[in-house]
């Protein structure tokens, strides 16, 4: 009874034997290529040293162009969003005019999901429910990065040009952003040559494998806002659609006694909020840590009957990793589009040092 199973496995192994010609090729090619290769490597090293600074400067210009692009243009486009084996087709309409920036992003397949953003307020409609999330601080993207901040990012990521390519039938410039350690993911972005808009983006894990991809299929510049987007959204009206009402959040200056003891190099605590959870007395502490590109959120909530489900250990939510732990009566959850090692390091280091903390 056992033998056939074993044989089956052997047969499977034989099937894999097809890979052999490849190994043969490698052995053969390495022998004849060894000498010229050495010379080439030396040469390339010398040349690349001289060119590295040029390339980095060029890439920085592109990143700068990208970060400002959305403030100036109106566009409409469709793209696919892929994560793991899930693919969603989406449509985006972006408007930047005298009324400010507005954006509407909606899913084209599966359940109707939509996000409308304007002036730091996002109305999210998902699976027939809506929430309004207000973001008090200015949008932080590469937009507000000073050259010094870009220098800081470059300590933890290396920028390089990936040459020219094409996306949504438009010529693009490819930029590689490679992390210098294992605590963050890399990016490969394709930027529209004309406007700097990101038309393709890959989030790459520790092994350089794409774990999340955005790829525009169509991209069209618009002279002015399309009729549906011409007027600023009336949030007073839309709020009535949402029984939960907006989430009230206020920035904090102190840490409320909670401290992050350890985080990977380059990460700093940039913001600390208290969110009042809608329709409850519960307060959610929210700390935002960032290395300039990647960001990690730390959520701290007191456990109560309403939230009696502890989350301990590592989990995954979409492309984000999460690490949960309990400290005294509190649930601490760390969430971010970063490797597990990062959420875990941060999660394990969180301490309460406020009034009443145990010595």
């Amino acid at each position, binding site marked *: 009874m056992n033998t056939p199973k074993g044989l089956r496995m052997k047969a499977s192994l034989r099937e894999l034997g097809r890979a052999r010609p490849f190994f043969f090729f490698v052995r053969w090619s390495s022998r004849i290529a060894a000498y010229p290769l050495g010379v080439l490597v030396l040469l390339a090293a010398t040349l690349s040293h001289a060119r590295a600074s040029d390339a980095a400067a060029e890439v920085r210009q592109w990143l700068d162009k990208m970060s400002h692009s959305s403030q100036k243009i109106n566009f409409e486009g469709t793209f696919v969003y892929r994560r793991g084996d899930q693919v969603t087709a989406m449509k985006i309409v972006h408007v930047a005019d005298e009324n400010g920036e507005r*954006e509407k992003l909606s899913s084209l397949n599966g359940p109707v999901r939509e996000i409308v953003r304007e002036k730091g307020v996002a109305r999210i409609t998902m699976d027939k429910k809506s929430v309004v999330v207000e973001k008090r601080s200015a*949008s932080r993207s590469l937009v507000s990065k000073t050259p010094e901040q870009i220098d800081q990012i470059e300590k933890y990521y290396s920028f390089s040009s990936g040459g020219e390519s094409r996306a949504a039938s438009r010529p693009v410039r490819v930029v590689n952003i490679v992390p210098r350690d294992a605590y963050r993911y890399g990016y490969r972005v394709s930027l529209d040559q004309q406007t700097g808009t*990101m038309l393709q983006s890959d989030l790459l894990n520790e*092994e350089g494998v794409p774990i999340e991809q955005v790829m525009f299929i169509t991209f069209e510049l618009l002279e002015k806002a399309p009729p549906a987007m011409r007027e600023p959204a009336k949030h007073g009206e839309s709020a009535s659609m949402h029984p939960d009402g907006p989430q009230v959040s206020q920035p904090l200056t102190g840490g409320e006694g909670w401290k992050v003891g350890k985080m990977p190099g380059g990460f700093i605590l940039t913001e600390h909020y208290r969110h009042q959870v809608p329709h409850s007395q519960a307060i959610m502490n929210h700390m935002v840590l*960032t290395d300039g590109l990647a960001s990690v*959120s730390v959520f701290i909530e007191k456990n109560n009957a309403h939230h009696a489900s502890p989350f*301990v250990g590592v989990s995954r939510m979409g492309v984000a990793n999460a690490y949960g732990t309990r400290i005294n009566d509190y649930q601490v959850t760390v969430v971010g589009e970063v490797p597990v090692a990062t959420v875990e390091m941060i999660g394990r280091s969180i301490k309460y040092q406020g009034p009443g903390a145990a010595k």
Partner: protein
Amino acid sequence: MTEKLNEKISALMDGGLAGHDAQDVIQNLKQSAELRQCWERYHLIGDALRNNLPPVVRHDLASRISAAIEADASQSLPTVVPFVPRQKNKPAPFFLKPLSGLAIAASVAAVAVVSFDRGGDVAPAVQTMAAAPAQMQGVDRLPVSVTPLVVDEAAAQSRLNDYLVNHSQYSTVMQGEMLPSARIVGYNPNE
């Protein structure tokens, strides 16, 4: 000898080995790092043939888990969720997946890799082993307090969803708000 063992490992993997034979192989697996690698490789091959490879294959998974367990054992471990054997066609709640992996690793270090087989079908032999860790004679057990974790899934889910939305709202991004929006719209909480 090795040949025979390899065949037995393969059989165990396919669920064709039970009782004393299975115990035997597990004992062998426990003692030989080489055999454990073989076990790991067979799973990898099986996954490859079934076109079921994860995006990333870490060859040192078992040793990293062992190292993590050792590191954890020296501190006081938090609650560990007991492994709930997964039924065919009935995927574990997303919430339990990684945790159950940890639990099985804690009780049966030698076959830790098994629980990471994310395929829809878990080999029956593996389920038996996982379901009866106490019968694994001689396998080191960690002195951890095992408290069943009663997860109100809906509540946990909605809470994690809240976190994800808030995280996306406040996170630093590459360009504007597009990527965080796409992450929320493209997130399937039931996966």
